């Protein structure tokens, strides 16, 4: 494999990682502040994609679609938080798992009821379509570069939000000590609703951004959910920094593993079985990565709490 191709694949891994980060950030935020396992996070991702597709189809504007994804997912998140999630903070993880699993069922079939069983159309805006030539002669899709940029901007925004704003102070207080928040006179119900809606909105935005180059269909959120969990667990639950590093690690492992493993096996096997064995191993690779990280560091790379 040429050096240039390797660079391009590393870029692809990075890009995949950033896409994962967009979904994982909201999940880790909600977990860190509220201690809530939210299986329905993938559904919010799906809601964002559907809202964007519907809006873009109606208005012809991708940007409006993005705005709609953010709004729809945040609204759905706030609604769910007030109606259901709020009652679950003091429950153990098992109740949260069951309740948010129930939410997946409701969201998935509700979406199918509203939008039908066929995938929706959502494409990237003309201005961002097609490849650009990078230094070194790599042709790379502009939209994917945009995703990398947006993802990094959101990461930066989250760091600033948490380190520099009043909301960030409250979030940090919430992570360390719930009683302290109440003592500080902060309306904890409002804080939780806001954080949950923020996490949901991020998931929705990710759904719209990613949906433009994937398939907008019912059930699109579940594989993403599992990957997002893998990411935040590797990074350490509750840590935005961990989520970013975990995302990139998973993105690189998955992409490079899929490319390099079959090549490696070809060195000592016939090509057909090398491809088969290499691909099989590659599909297990991120889970192997996660298991190894947890065996070495039982609370993830940046997880503080046991």
């Amino acid at each position: 494999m040429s050096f240039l191709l390797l660079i391009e694949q590393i870029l692809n891994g990075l890009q995949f990682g950033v896409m994962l980060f967009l979904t994982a950030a909201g999940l880790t935020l909600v977990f860190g502040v509220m201690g809530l396992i939210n299986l329905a996070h993938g559904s919010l991702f799906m809601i964002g994609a559907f809202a964007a597709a519907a809006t873009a189809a109606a208005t012809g504007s991708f940007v409006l679609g993005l705005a709609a994804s953010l709004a729809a997912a945040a609204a759905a998140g706030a609604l769910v938080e007030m109606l259901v999630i709020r009652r679950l903070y003091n429950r153990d993880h098992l109740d949260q798992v069951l309740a948010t699993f129930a939410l997946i069922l409701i969201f998935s079939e509700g979406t199918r009821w509203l939008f039908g069983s066929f995938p929706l159309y959502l494409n990237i805006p003309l201005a961002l379509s097609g490849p650009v030539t990078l230094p070194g002669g790599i042709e790379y899709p502009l939209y994917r570069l945009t995703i990398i940029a947006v993802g990094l901007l959101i990461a930066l925004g989250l760091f600033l939000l948490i380190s520099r704003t009043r909301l960030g102070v409250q979030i940090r207080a919430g992570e360390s000590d719930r009683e302290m928040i109440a003592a500080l006179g902060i309306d904890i119900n409002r804080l939780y609703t806001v954080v949950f809606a923020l996490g949901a909105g991020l998931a929705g935005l990710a759904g719209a951004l990613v949906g433009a180059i994937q398939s907008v269909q019912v059930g699109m959120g579940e594989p993403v959910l599992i990957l997002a969990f893998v990411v935040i667990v590797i990074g350490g639950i509750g840590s935005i920094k961990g989520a970013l590093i975990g995302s990139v690690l998973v993105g690189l492992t998955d992409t490079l593993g899929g490319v390099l493993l079959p090549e490696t096996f070809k060195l000592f096997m016939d090509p057909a079985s090398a491809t088969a064995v290499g691909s099989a191993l590659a599909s297990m690779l991120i889970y192997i990565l996660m298991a190894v990280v947890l065996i070495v560091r039982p609370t993830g790379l940046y997880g503080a709490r046991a």
Partner: protein
Amino acid sequence: MMKTKSLLLAATAAAMTAGMALAEPVKVGMITTLSGGGAGLGIDVRDGFMLAVKQAGNPDIEVVIEDDQRKPDIAVQLADRMIQSDDVDILTGIIWSNLAMAVVPSATAQGKFYLSPNAGPSALAGKGCHPNYFNVAWQNDNLHEAAGAYANSAGLKNSFILAPNYPAGQDALAGYKRMYEGELAGEIYTKLGQTDYAAEIAQIRASDADSVFFFLPGGMGISFLKQYADSGVDLPVVGPAFSFDQGILQAVGAAALGVKNTSQWNKDIDNAANKAFVESFEAEYGRLPSLYASQGFDTANLILSAMAKADVKDQDAFREALRAAEFDSVRGEFKFGPNHHPIQDIYVREVVQEGDVFTNKILGVALEDHADAYAGECKM
């Protein structure tokens, strides 16, 4: 999981169409995917099937429809119920090969007929064939073989081929290679359910391929096509019809325009039965029929044609009637091979835009009177 929509068509239609002499009613159990991500395919099969039943106006056919949720164990459970409790004569409807493998062997072993409107795993065409199993769609490899044949005739010499790493994917690449005579620029198995194909597309770009063949059903195909179109790689793409089907094309949009794909059916096949089918389907459901709908439609008509000739309780006679396949297939000519799989023409289509709608038009025949590669292994 059990939605029972018993559709006992009005007995008042006892005015009776000609040829409905045999009064023994036939009970059909349809197990198909109606909820979750893959529901579109099952809904199409169901709608096509029920359209034919409705048009026949035959009061002697009763259809029980159930949702398998694309889960093998649910499909088995439904089959058990239909066989044990509903006492159906014929089972049909399954979309996915892995579900078919779960249901078909035991259903046929229990003396039921199974007519496949979509899945055609090689095991059931070869060593595992059964007198009571009929495939009305295709053997899984057929469309891929046709794609290979088309690649030869189009002068493609160096294909890059990819499919998900699971049995149907492995069959797909094997099927393509069976007919294709050129070189392979690369051969990749992707992860089942994969949504991002940047790495694969980079490999395609870096190779010296002159064409791409892929089999990525459902959402995987949509993702691949969108990302491929955006990558700037402009090698010609060939694939089986599954990723260019009516239900999917609207979601892919312009990214699919011009792609050549192989199919045993298209809405512009020129015969009376097909014209009537396309028109009546659009009138009934307000959308264009898909490949899957056509297969459901043909399956129902095959059953109806056999009912007209034999009593379902007389299994040997009914089996002969099915094997004769004397119905007006929307594909034109249709007959069964010795292993009860179709011998049929497979066409090359191109994705085009008609007004706002993306659809396919036929370019020519890729393989004429094509049978499958496993018939020889079938002993029955």
